[in-house]
């Protein structure tokens, strides 16, 4: 079991998240794909920290911060999605075009 295994696992998870963000229509689905990408980053952070020559806790500390920000992000994103649902009756991001574009 070497670093490359964990790197490839993280890369695969991240790319699935990228596909989810780009391809899904529902806002909640996009949120879940973002969670996948954050987890991929966490896997790589912890793996790089664990395979260092000098053991360091920095990778795990940053992973804890990532989890914290992910929790805040989910709460805010779901509040925004609920607000959009109430005012527009849909959580489909294709139909949310208030700002043009």
């Amino acid at each position, binding site marked *: *079991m070497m670093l490359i295994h964990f790197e490839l696992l993280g890369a695969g998870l991240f790319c699935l998240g*990228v596909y989810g963000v780009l391809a899904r229509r529902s806002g909640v689905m996009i949120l879940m794909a973002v969670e*996948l990408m954050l*987890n991929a980053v966490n896997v790589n952070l912890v793996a790089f920290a664990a395979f260092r020559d000098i053991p360091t806790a920095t990778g*795990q500390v940053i992973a*804890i911060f990532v989890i914290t920000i992910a929790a805040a992000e*989910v709460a805010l994103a779901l509040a925004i999605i609920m607000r959009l649902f109430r*005012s527009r009756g849909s*959580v489909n991001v294709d139909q949310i075009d208030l700002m043009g574009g």
Partner: protein
Amino acid sequence: MGLAFFYIAGAVTLFGAIGVVVTRNVVYAALFLLVSLAGVAGTFVLLYAEFLALVQVLIYGGAIIIVILFGLMLTRTSEYEASGENRRWPFAALVSIGLFALLAYAFLADSALYNSSTREAISVEELGRELFEQWAVPFEIASLILIVALIGAVVIGRAAPEDDEPETGPGSTQR
């Protein structure tokens, strides 16, 4: 032996992730996400990051999935049963595969630099000391961000005032 466990954890993670991006049912997607996050927790255990595995299960499995399921429950629309891909999905698949190929190439190209297979265990005590000594200020800022996000979510998500009247009317799609 460790490699077999790694393949099991990795297969569970990727299976859940594929389920999240492929299934058309949003509730199934949330449950697939839970499977994937559990696989990531297993990966953390293999990296001797047992505290992080615990946090992963507690915060992701216990809190974030529940919040997402509540969000799904409160914004239930008829389109949830079949919430598919938009029409740009072949482009998205192309981008995703291309990115994976690039990352895999980069990782394989310099894998010779990191060929050690020894992992150093970092005790929870060591982790806590690092977090509260060297990272004390970012830790406090993270607490501040959490409280701001909490208040912000309450303010954004509470019952809409009169000026926020629905244009299409949620009653038409709500069941």
